[in-house]
């Protein structure tokens, strides 16, 4: 069986230690951005010497529990029916196993692309890339035209019906600025999400990225958006629009705007 198709038990067992280790390393790493940190062997990011936040998602460790989905909603007051992150879950027929089907899980969020298609289309320059690589929306400027929603190839953006502005994952910028981890990383049961500074060679993220390089993938690489969300264990069939049967859940009776 493909390693990515794990049963919940095995994944959960492997999980908790790396999660706390990753947290410790992150917090330890924050104050020590030194001149030596400019070396980013993995993946090729402009060596600015500044912090460049990124995320590594180890699909093999995700158990599809949606704790990230829930904590993100709680942390960011995401309106009911909207999501900044979600774990897409698929049932995949298995041919090399006695078991008829396995579950494939794929956490999705804003990819904080280095070449973000959402930014040039914004007619009022409300969406922008922060110096630390986070793609953000200036809510005071956004006109809610939703052009960025159309331009995002990852379906990561939406119109927030409470604010009537473009909304998306911010890597929990408010937490990161305070030296905390994004809520989804903090709550990840399997330790599947690793967050950190790609320019810090001593950091957990850079180390893990380097180790995983041969199997490192991003979503829709052909669009050359240069995502800052990297995946280990990303099955080829799921890197783009998934060819499969959609059984989508759509929240009903929600107020629209």
């Amino acid at each position: 069986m493909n390693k990515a198709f794990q049963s919940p038990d095995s994944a959960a067992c492997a999980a908790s230690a790396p999660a706390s280790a990753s947290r410790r390393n992150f917090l330890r790493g924050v104050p020590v951005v030194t001149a030596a940190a400019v070396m980013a062997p993995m993946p090729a990011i402009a060596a600015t010497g500044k912090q460049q936040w990124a995320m590594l998602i180890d699909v093999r460790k995700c158990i599809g529990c949606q704790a990230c989905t829930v904590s993100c909603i709680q942390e960011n007051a995401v309106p009911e029916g909207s999501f900044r992150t979600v774990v897409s879950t698929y049932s995949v027929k298995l041919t090399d196993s006695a078991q008829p089907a396995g579950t494939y899980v794929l956490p999705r969020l804003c990819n904080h692309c280095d070449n973000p298609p959402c930014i040039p289309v914004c007619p009022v320059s409300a969406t922008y890339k922060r110096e630390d690589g986070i793609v953000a929306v200036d809510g005071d400027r956004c006109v809610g035209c939703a052009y960025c929603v159309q331009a995002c190839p990852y379906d990561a953006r939406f119109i927030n019906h409470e604010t009537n502005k473009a909304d998306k994952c911010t890597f929990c910028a408010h937490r990161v600025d305070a030296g905390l981890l994004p809520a989804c990383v903090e709550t990840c049961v399997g330790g599947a999400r690793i967050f950190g500074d790609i320019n810090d060679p001593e950091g957990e993220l850079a180390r893990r990225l380097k180790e995983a390089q041969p199997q490192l993938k991003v979503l829709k690489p052909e669009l050359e958006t240069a995502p800052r969300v990297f995946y280990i264990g990303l099955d080829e069939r799921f890197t783009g629009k998934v060819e499969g049967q959609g059984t989508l859940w759509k929240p009903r009776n929600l107020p629209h705007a």
Partner: protein
Amino acid sequence: MNPNIVETINVAREVAWLPWAVQYFFLIGLSYGAYLLSLPGIVFRRPGWAGISRLALLGALVCGLAAPVALLADLHQPGRFWHFYAYFTPTSWMSWGAFFIPVYLGGLLTYAWLAFRPDLARHAQSGGKLAGLAGLLAYGGHESRGALKAAALLAFVGAALVALYTGAEVAVVQARPLWNTPLLPLQFFITAFAGAVGLALLFNRFSVRDAAANRRMAGVLAATQVVALAVGALWLALGVSGISPVHAQALAEVGPSANWQLSAAWAVAATVLTLVLAWKWPGSGLLIGLLALHSAWMMRWSIFIGGQEVPKTGAGYYTYSLPLGPEGLMGIVGTAGLWVFLFILITTLLPLDRLAAGNTDKAAA
């Protein structure tokens, strides 16, 4: 579709460009199309075109005035429209559009005023409804060809820019393969122009019922349908053959869907029917006019609403059901209501029969 993969948990993204956007693209398309149809009779004084062009200019005016309201309503923060002018962003076609629309509408309004001044003066003299207002607007009622041509030129520049930006704005969205084809702006333009001919056919039918004008417009409409079919065939050929990867991708996304197959069959059937009727029975002005308008609207509905039903990452399709409120049906009905209001207002000052008759003795009678 791969039957081995079933999506069990994911989220459906709602459409973010609402039916208001469909209305905007429909009306602004009709407006610039009708503006082009106004040129032969009014600016170039081609024989036999006077009535057609004057009716078309009325259509350009009514649609052009209603369109920006729909656009504004599609913003989720309409009160912030001034941000478009305060924070110009040259990388965004939408940002450019905010500047192109006033150029077009400024040119169009000036051109229409100069073209209709004598008619306004005549209406004031005849003492019809709102004759006082017509007299004020006529401002002497003089005809000034030089100014008219200059205004028509400004409107032409604006119309070309609007046609360009409305097409490019959608065609540059790589994230939606269905939109991201170089033929899309051309398809918007052809259907918009055909719709404008349809509108002028209806105006003719409900005013002077000029058979010669009807035949002339039916001929133009038939030509637009031939071009529309040719471009559609080219689109399909590029997709099926795989010569153009973007077209192939667009086709692959929607091809397997029964809904899309129905939409495509519907569009082709409507176009062929319009072509055959316009060619063989040019007298069927009312029917072909309605058909052309319907095709222009359906094309935009399918592209915008249907296009947003294609998930960018998830499997299958999102399902859209038209909400009844302002974000759905009321947006469509409201825009139509505004159109009717503007039509009544303008035709009170400039009665349809008088416009259709042109600057002739018939008009003075």
